[in-house]
């Protein structure tokens, strides 16, 4: 039964690989959730930050364009 280590190795790599990948998605999702919350807080305090839904009106001091 010399092949057992090969079989075990293969299964470990497959299961381990898939598990590692899924956790990497979860980790990246956490990062995105944190930035989303930060933007939410930011938009709440400072309307100056361009927000896509409540467009700045004409006479409003929109973010200074330095393009």
């Amino acid at each position, binding site marked *: 039964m010399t*092949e057992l280590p090969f079989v075990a190795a293969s299964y470990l790599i497959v299961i381990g690989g898939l598990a590692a990948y899924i956790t990497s998605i979860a980790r990246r999702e956490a990062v995105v959730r944190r930035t*989303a919350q930060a*933007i939410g807080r930011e938009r709440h305090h400072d309307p100056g930050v361009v927000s896509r839904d409540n467009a700045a009106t004409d006479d409003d001091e929109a973010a200074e364009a330095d393009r």
Partner: protein
Amino acid sequence: MPMKARVSTFGLLAGTALAITTIVGLFVVPADAAQGDVQRIMYVHVPSAWLAYLAFLVTFVSSVLYLWRRELRFDRLAIAAAEIGLVLTGITIVTGAIWGKATWGKWWDWDPRLTTTAILFVVYAGYLLVRQSLGDRYRRARLAAVYGIVAFVNVPIVHFSVLWWRGLHQAPTVIRPGDPSIDHTLLFELLASLLSFTLVFIWALRRRTALEAGRDAADLTLGPGT
């Protein structure tokens, strides 16, 4: 943009299915008469390979759909499938090499399938690299779509040129993993494994697409409702 629960019910289902087919594959199903226990590697190697090809097909189709409809949801599907496809291709190459070592005593034998898979790994690694090098979101989606299409068109060409290259005169490797003549219970386990891998694939696809959607939602430069 509600983020997925820690582990959705679908995730649990996929996880348990994979656990079951793994245990059955390792301990319950009898060893293959000819190859012995080594043949058990097939239950993880073959599904990985088939799903890798499926993943790249999903990237191809969603790339075409993106160019046609210009909706970011297709681009998100394309990147999700490509990334998962790359992971599965990596797994396929490694388990294939292990299987090769166990059966032929060599890690690499330029077996046509393994060689093709290795080339595909590099092609789709190129796809991810192209995406990382393009800034503007919509431009990245459009250019990645074109690359996704060219990469996929390349798959059959690579497959046949490697098969031909392997030997116009030399028959391909004798051991054909998916050989229909194998024992029925083994075949059943292979199909069960394929099913469990497919469930895991779909689950990973949904999670990865949701991640990309989360990134787009947090990206201020995008218009509303992307």
